[in-house]
């Protein structure tokens, strides 16, 4: 059948500037460019273009311009171009539509409706250039009361992890991302004193030296898991759900299971890596308790155990159960959380925004008097340092970032991760492409990002007259809502601007 899709993007080439060096052709992994030797011109297959902008950035003469397509159907608010294209793809294949990255639909972004307070006159603001600012964050269960023996404060009995800044890299598996990207995350987290998360794709042996900066995942596929894997890491995370695709599993197709990935996941080369939707040993909170304690036993009670769920309608009740089941850390992944591959319909329609889920969970745990039993990590849709600050004021202990880290490595959010053809070398296993991420430069970019955000968070603290991130945690008086309805303010637990 005729492919009846209009190109999504137009490619405009300034022929006066083009020197036919064919860089665009070599850089494009989506087969957009060709060279017509007879006429000494470059030819375009616009319909393949995904607007990753690799070619425009690398064109030595700036001859290329990729822009939104001017091809148009008759404008229609209901039958948009996206809606029509999706239907045509489904009619052609009979399959589930896939996509990558987080939800791109214009659901209300609550970060943009929350404003932060500052000190004026009555309490002085603090200059972070001059005065010490504490961003150090400790994750894990906190004791119900302080224990003092002979006048000395005793260390708590619970294992914990320490971060130099409340920002960690969220779970992205080796398989979903390239080895060089994975290594960059590991090195950057280690250098900066924070954590990265291996996802459920195993953990290459040669990266175990970064164990003090590593969180390992135990997900439903149980790939790459053994006792060494748990004990080499600083924390173990049970992954129940992911914001981009709550309630469904994962699927790494066999063609991506290369020799090294097979070694890391401990599955045969070329075989499909299917993560079932649920953990088949977890059908209830009691079962979750069983796995949490199995992992505590497996690590001799030396490591905190976290449980990650996607933010869904009943998140507060579920979180309450998770805390009682023994989770030391709860991770909430919101509606806009990223993914390497997810069915589009789930990514865009299932789950709730992290802002609301986070506030609701924090409120619930406080009301029940168990908030100190577990730390709370927010993820899915954090874009900048002020989002981090707002998340912490809403009740988070720390955040996970995924997309911002990938953007630091070169990503342009073209949402084609699931094709495995990432032209920026990030979400691909093709050796030719994955070389495009240099792990040393990547590490530098990521530590720069962490440094920049940390400096900005210190500025935000200082302007509010606060010198420790600990004092912002759950301090919702630092926030005011704007353009929000009463129920939204109530859920967020904040007042409206001017109130």
């Amino acid at each position, binding site marked *: 059948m005729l492919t009846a899709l209009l190109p999504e993007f137009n490619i405009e080439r300034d022929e006066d500037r083009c020197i036919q060096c064919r860089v665009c052709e070599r850089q494009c992994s989506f087969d957009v460019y060709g060279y017509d030797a007879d006429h000494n011109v470059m030819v375009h297959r616009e319909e393949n273009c995904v607007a990753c902008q690799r070619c425009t950035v690398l064109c030595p003469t700036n001859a290329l311009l990729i822009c939104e397509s001017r091809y148009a159907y008759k404008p229609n608010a209901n039958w948009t171009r996206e809606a029509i294209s999706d239907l045509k793809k489904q009619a052609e294949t009979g399959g589930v539509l896939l996509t990558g990255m987080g939800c791109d639909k214009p659901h209300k972004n609550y970060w943009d409706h929350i404003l932060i307070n500052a000190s004026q006159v009555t309490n002085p603001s603090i200059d972070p250039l001059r005065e010490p600012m504490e961003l150090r964050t400790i994750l894990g269960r906190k004791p119900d009361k302080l224990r003092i023996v002979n006048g000395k404060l005793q260390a708590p009995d619970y294992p914990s992890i*320490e971060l130099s800044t409340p920002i960690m890299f969220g779970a992205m598996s080796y398989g979903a991302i390239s080895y060089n990207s994975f290594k960059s995350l590991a090195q950057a987290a280690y250098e900066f004193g924070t954590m990265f998360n291996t996802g459920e794709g195993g953990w290459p042996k040669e990266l175990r030296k970064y164990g003090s900066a590593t969180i390992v995942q135990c997900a439903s596929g149980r790939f790459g898991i*053994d006792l060494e894997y748990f004990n080499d890491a600083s924390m173990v995370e049970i992954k129940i759900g992911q914001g981009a695709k709550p309630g469904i599993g994962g699927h790494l197709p066999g063609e991506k299971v290369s020799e090294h990935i097979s070694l890391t996941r401990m599955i*045969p080369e070329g075989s499909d890596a299917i993560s079932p939707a649920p953990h*088949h040993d977890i059908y209830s909170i009691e079962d979750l308790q069983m796995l949490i*304690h*199995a992992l505590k*036993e497996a690590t001799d009670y030396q490591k905190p155990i976290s449980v990650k769920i996607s933010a869904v309608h009943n998140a507060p009740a579920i979180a309450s159960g998770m805390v009682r089941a023994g989770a030391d850390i709860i991770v909430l992944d919101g509606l806009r959380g990223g993914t390497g591959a997810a069915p589009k319909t789930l990514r865009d329609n299932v789950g709730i925004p992290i802002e609301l889920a986070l506030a609701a969970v924090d409120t619930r745990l406080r009301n029940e008097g168990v908030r100190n039993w577990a730390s709370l990590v927010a993820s899915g849709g954090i874009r900048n340092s002020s989002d981090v600050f707002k998340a912490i004021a809403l009740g988070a202990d720390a955040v996970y970032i995924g997309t911002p880290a990938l953007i630091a490595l070169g990503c342009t959010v073209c949402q084609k991760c699931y094709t495995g053809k990432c032209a920026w070398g990030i979400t691909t296993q093709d050796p030719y492409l994955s070389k495009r991420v240099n792990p040393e430069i990547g590490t530098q970019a990521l530590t720069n990002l962490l440094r920049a955000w940390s400096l900005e968070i210190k500025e935000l603290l200082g302007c509010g007259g606060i010198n420790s991130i600990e004092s912002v945690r759950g301090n919702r008086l630092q926030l005011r809502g704007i353009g929000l309805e009463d129920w939204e303010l109530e859920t967020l637990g904040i007042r409206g601007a001017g109130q």
Partner: protein
Amino acid sequence: MSTAAARERRAESRGQERKTRGKKIYSPGEWIKINTRGVHHKDLNREIRALAERGARKFELRKVYGQRYIGTNLWGTERDKIKIRVYGTPGSDMGAFMDGPEIEVFGNAQDATGNTMNCGKIIIHGSAGDVLGYGMRGGEIYVRGNVGYRVGIHMKEYMDKVPTIVIGGTMQDFFGEYMAGGRIIVLNKFFEGNPPIRQSYFIGTGMHGGNIFVRGDVEAHQIGAEVGMEEPTDAEWKIIEKYVGNYCKAFGLEARQAKLLRREKFRRLSAKSTRPYGRHYAY
């Protein structure tokens, strides 16, 4: 950065503490008897671990009454030389993530036995509950009697590790779902002449690797759409002979071995495709 360095220093001092604790005072041949009555699983497993760190290799747990995670907390010990005998009823997740030890249970086992087990052996002289061998990557499990639901889900194999489960009785639904490797042998030995009270369904749904060998009849409507039914090959028959032999030896059933091993009675259930969901997606 300073935090990473501080973290490492702490880890180092923890390691030293452990080294000085490890005075070897037990001889490896000695069976150490532990009365587990009223002992919480955390204390029991820590005791076994502490003893193992001091050279003990053989443990006899008496009056076991639901203590979970036996055999799990042994990372860092000479775990592949450890043998544990369990008298009574161990709790769930026995041998979860286990990597080497051998556990023999004189009684029934509960749920999730051998969960994500990597290496070692479990022998159960009774029946076992649900989710036996979930995500198992290596080692052997022998169950004299029946097993519950969701057994052998997502078993996988890798290089020299081929997990094997032998079940003397029968199984319930969702058996070997998502199976990616390894082998399960079901002998149905309690039902000769009499069909089981309840048939199991959804056998091997989503299966994309490994083999299930069933002695006795399996009807087409009991198995998942991704599963094909055939006769075992000669090479596979050798494997069946070996592991059924092990089963009979473990439970003193050598006299019945020849009767159990009639080749014409065995069926092999295996994946029709290693890519069961290849056509599931558009682009």
